[in-house]
């Protein structure tokens, strides 16, 4: 039997954005077209100011005014959608709620019965490796643990797509690597379609099936790099030869864009 080609979970079609500012219009994202398959892990990498966060906010529904279309399972969506979960770079755990109550938050808002939401939240806390910390407040936990609370909370609705905007940027290098392994494990267990925004090349290579390199402003997809490292992945692969080649390939492309960004920054400052 011929294999039926699966429809993409997430499809971006000619998505573009121009910001209107008092100093004139700024083209943040040039038309981006992209298909993401079920269970795929995609990273978007680019220099600061390449519009990757803008792209993320469009897909996540926080920016509703844009050109083009975003489709989930073939249905066009606009605005926040429960099939698309977001994890942010900044501290986002509610400081007045315990770890458990943070994870039950979206289910509480949706009116799910208490027993059910506590049961699901306990499962998710187990998934992110926070057993025994249910009753702790965020201030009692480390930065990496707080970010795991945010991930568990976002997974509460089993979103079709998990969007993460530099979720490890505020963490130290070792925590970042371990948390990357945790995210991979979650992604494999749930077959979770994931889109990660990052500017860390090694992180992108370690986690992704495909890495999208974005150009400096206006952001467009400059190149797509297939990461052909074997699965399951882990941070242990970072010493490998192929890993190094991939990092070098990506850096070659990124270097040009990053230096454009730097020049632009210096031009504006002078």
């Amino acid at each position, binding site marked *: 039997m011929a294999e039926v080609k699966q429809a993409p979970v997430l499809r971006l079609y000619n998505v573009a954005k121009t910001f209107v500012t008092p100093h004139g219009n700024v083209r943040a994202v040039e038309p981006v077209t992209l298909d993401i398959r079920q269970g795929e892990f995609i990273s978007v990498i680019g220099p600061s100011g390449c519009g990757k966060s803008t792209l993320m906010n469009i897909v996540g*529904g*926080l920016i509703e005014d844009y050109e083009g279309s975003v489709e989930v399972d073939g249905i066009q969506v606009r605005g926040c959608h429960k099939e698309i*979960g977001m994890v*942010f770079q*900044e501290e986002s755990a509610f400081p*007045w709620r315990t770890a458990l109550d943070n994870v039950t938050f979206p289910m509480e808002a949706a009116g799910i019965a208490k027993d059910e939401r506590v049961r699901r939240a306990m499962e998710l806390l187990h998934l992110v490796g926070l057993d025994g910390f249910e009753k*702790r*407040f965020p201030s009692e936990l480390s930065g990496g643990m707080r970010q795991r609370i945010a991930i568990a*909370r976002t997974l509460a609705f089993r979103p079709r797509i998990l969007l993460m905007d530099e979720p490890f940027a505020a963490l130290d290098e070792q925590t970042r690597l371990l948390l990357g392994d945790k995210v991979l494990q979650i992604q494999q267990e749930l077959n979770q379609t994931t889109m990660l925004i990052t500017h860390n090349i090694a992180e992108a290579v370690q986690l992704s099936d495909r890495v999208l390199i974005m150009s400096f402003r206006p952001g467009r997809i400059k190149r797509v790099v297939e990461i052909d490292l074997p699965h399951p992945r882990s941070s242990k692969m970072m010493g490998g030869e192929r890993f190094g080649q991939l990092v070098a390939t990506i850096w070659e492309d990124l270097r040009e864009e990053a230096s454009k960004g730097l020049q632009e920054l210096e031009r504006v400052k002078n």
Partner: protein
Amino acid sequence: MAAVEYIGRKATFWTVGRLRLAGLVAVLGAWELAGLSGLFFSDVLPSAFRIVRAMGQLLISREFYNHLWVTVFEVLVSFVLGAVTGTLAGLALGISRRAGDIFEPFIHYLAPTPKIVFLPILLVLFGVGMGSKIALGAISCFFPMALNIAAGVREVSPTLLRVGRTFNLTRSQTIRMIYLPALIPAVATGFRIGLAVSIVGCLLSEYKLARAGMGFLAGQYGDKFAIAHMLAVLIFIFVLASLGNAVIARFVRLPGPGDPSRGKTAFDK
């Protein structure tokens, strides 16, 4: 050098509590010595014993409780009025940028103005009785309440609000599940400052012109040069204010683990 160094504070005889007590004893001692030294009129600087005796006399007089009740009633009503209107105004100023831009400068300029300047108008409007005192206390309480809450609303983390948006929270859910809990510290501070200035407003206006109340009583004793009794009344006012503060601290609990030095940390497990 010791190989194992003691980290943290060593337990010594001079704990914070003992130092505090020692300070109190020192002040009382200095007071007594100054009184006994004969350098001042004994009527101006009555000995602690005479003050305590005056306190006892007040506690057994029926009249005193009448004054006490008048003041407690005025403070409570003015605090509730000021806190409710201040909270609503603060929410409006914080949530609506337009309202904030228009009205907040006025509130900022009026806030440090001594509210007692309004007393003549309030006396005309509400009479010499409790009405004018309640009005002045409420006006005093309104400003710190409104400013604290408005600042608190603006300081609610934009990331937390974005989290709310990604979970499709309704407007009322956003207020109930994000704004209100995030505002508890601002409300607690507003309540504490608001209560303090309510008390000041009520007592000051009682002292100026009234027929009853603790401020009125203190003023009367002062005019009669009964300094021991006047100081006794002031001590009761102090106790009253401290009680009020303690009640607020008890009921407006800050969310979270409380004092982290007392609780266990994540690594104790």
